[in-house]
């Protein structure tokens, strides 16, 4: 295998952190897949939240997403691995404009893992699936010898349906669109960092992990009319990763206004203490939307009517100049670029 295609000879942690290195890894894995799509559906090379399988004689198409879930610690403030797994799958479907129908579940467990913890995780998984109104239709389990896996990992496939004419894609942001975020940013990643061993940062911050079903339900008409051009949940890589993705794939620039971006005090405090950039930190229950400017206020109002979306804000807009870039008007009025995250966020030194 040629080594020149990648930046190092071994896989590093940063290859999974939603940044430039992760793109490199995905390209490495997918570069010699022969069939990358079904008919004219969305396939793997789009690198979107999911894929579509068009059904020739129907107005609807099947949407499929795949997601692996690992988290440390597996029980974290505001959630656990089971909840995270359902939310990941359901939200990816919604981000494609699809009605979630079902998920499959694979659980790989390390020898010695307690039934007690497993019960909590699968209960959470099953109850959250019920809340999302989706069936769990198939699954598989594997046990790995002690020491070959850290506790437990899960993998899900999400299956949904959407009208063929709904086009919610990373590549579909249009000049003039308003950018909406459905709630405060970076809660999940910051809560996890704050709760990890050795940091001892006491705070009441909890993860935002949640299904976005309520927001999907109120926005069905806007989705059907293609008023919402793109949706993405800013997980790994945070809003910096998600918005750079849009700017690149849509060949536009996205201009944000810092003072409009909702961010909790605790998140700011922990990030400043550790020298981390909240724009690059994951949420697990938020969505970014690129919305037709004429309807942006109505869309925002509808999102505000839901419990999970009550802190939604319009945080910027899509522009033509500086294509493929994300710009930020800072709190004090300066302008800067917001870059694609590189890898795992590392605290600054002094």
């Amino acid at each position: 295998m040629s080594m020149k295609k990648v930046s190092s000879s071994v896989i590093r942690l940063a290859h999974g952190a939603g940044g430039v290195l992760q793109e490199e890894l995905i390209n490495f894995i997918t570069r010699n897949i022969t069939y990358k799509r079904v008919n004219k559906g969305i396939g793997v090379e789009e690198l979107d939240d999911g894929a579509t399988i068009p059904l020739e004689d129907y107005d609807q198409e099947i949407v499929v997403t795949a997601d692996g879930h690992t988290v440390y610690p597996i029980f974290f403030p505001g959630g656990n691995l089971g909840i995270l797994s359902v939310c990941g799958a359901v939200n990816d479907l919604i981000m494609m404009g699809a009605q979630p129908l079902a998920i499959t579940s694979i659980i790989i467990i390390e020898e010695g893992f307690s039934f007690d913890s497993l019960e909590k995780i699968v209960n959470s998984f099953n109850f959250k699936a019920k809340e999302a109104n989706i069936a769990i239709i198939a699954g598989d389990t594997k046990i790995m010898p002690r020491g070959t896996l850290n506790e437990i990992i899960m993998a899900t496939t999400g299956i949904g349906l959407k009208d063929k004419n709904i086009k919610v894609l990373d590549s579909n942001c249009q000049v003039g669109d308003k950018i909406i975020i459905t709630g405060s940013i970076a809660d999940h990643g910051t809560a996890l960092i704050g709760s990890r061993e050795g940091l001892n940062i006491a705070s009441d911050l909890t993860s935002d992990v949640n299904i976005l079903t309520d927001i999907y339900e109120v926005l069905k008409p806007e989705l059907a009319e293609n008023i919402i051009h793109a949706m993405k949940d800013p997980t790994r890589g945070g809003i910096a990763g998600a918005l750079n993705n849009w700017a690149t794939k849509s060949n536009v620039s996205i201009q944000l206004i810092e003072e409009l971006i909702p961010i909790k005090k605790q998140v700011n405090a922990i990030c400043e203490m550790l020298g981390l950039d909240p724009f690059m930190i994951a949420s697990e229950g938020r969505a970014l939307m690129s919305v037709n400017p004429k309807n942006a206020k109505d869309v925002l109002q509808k999102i505000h009517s839901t419990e999970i979306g009550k802190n939604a804000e319009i945080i910027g807009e899509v522009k033509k100049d500086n294509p493929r870039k994300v710009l930020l008007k800072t709190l004090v009025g300066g302008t800067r670029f917001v870059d694609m995250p590189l890898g795992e966020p590392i605290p600054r030194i002094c």
Partner: protein
Amino acid sequence: MEIPGTQHLRNKDFTDKVIKAITKLTREINRKIKLMHVCGTHEHTISKYGLRSLLPKEIEILSGPGCPVCVCPAADIDKAIELGKRKDTIITTFGDMIRVPASNLSLAELKAKGGDIRIVYSPHDAINIAKENPEKEVIFFAIGFETTVPTIGYEIMSGPPSNFSVICAHKLIPAALELLISQSQLRIDGFISPGHVSTIIGLKPFKIFSDAYRVPNVIAGFEPNDVLLGILMLVKQIKEKKYETLNEYTRVVKPEGNIKAQEIISEVFDSVSSPWRGIGRVLDGGLSIKDEYKEFDADKKFNIQIKKSQDIPPGCSCHLVMVGKLYPYECKLFREKCTPLNPIGPCMVSMEGTCSIYYKYHE
């Protein structure tokens, strides 16, 4: 979490007022003004808040050698890597020190190949690791300026476990500044001096620049309006042709500094002539552990010799960027061959490095 009375430090109306005052004075001075800061965190604030885009274009802000990761010589990293290859050894260090390429490898690459390399948040974490792993040697790769020195000195003084030792790669800021200022071709009109370092050492070590070299000097904090106020205080001195060392960061920096911390530094360390990556040997530019504490000095404990190391790879301009002679985008490798993903020089690796900050925040 906010310190009372600091609300204006990120307040846009306040920013507008300060910018207005700076612009007015700059017009009156009516020439180019070259200011230099020497702190990665100042560059971080300037870039993060886009301050350069607010200042009149006559004001140029250069970044000096203020990134502790960037100025750490490759030989010291090579030393940590050699020690990290030994069996039953854990190397601990701060943040992105592990990503810096040395002569062959970086600590991150050694980690991916199986080396036990751990990022810690304070030297005390390293002590705890040493206590938890009595059968292993735990080595703390100590970098940073005066800011990080006292906590490490304190651990060494407090009787750490015998399996703990330190690679001492600490650097001292004022000596390096003096070297820079004596290079006349730079012609700096004013220094934005580092608030964190001054918190420890106080104002006195900086006075030489205003008193002997007649360069205005302001110690500034790290909020956007701190930095802008610092710039205003410099521009005002330039206008009035004054040369003083002033303190903008009064809520933290005492004129005498932190005496306790200074005592710890002089108890445990000697100042020595020391190599800075990209700058060369700086008289009194670094620290070494005193003989009384030599059992905790990894250099003496393991006696690792690094024969030849490469600080600046071919084509790289980090040595010029670090002293403000070149902007990152003037380097041929910048953004083309040298990116944060594939850093060639040290300034592209560290988040506090000028090249990395320019890559992230500037076009």
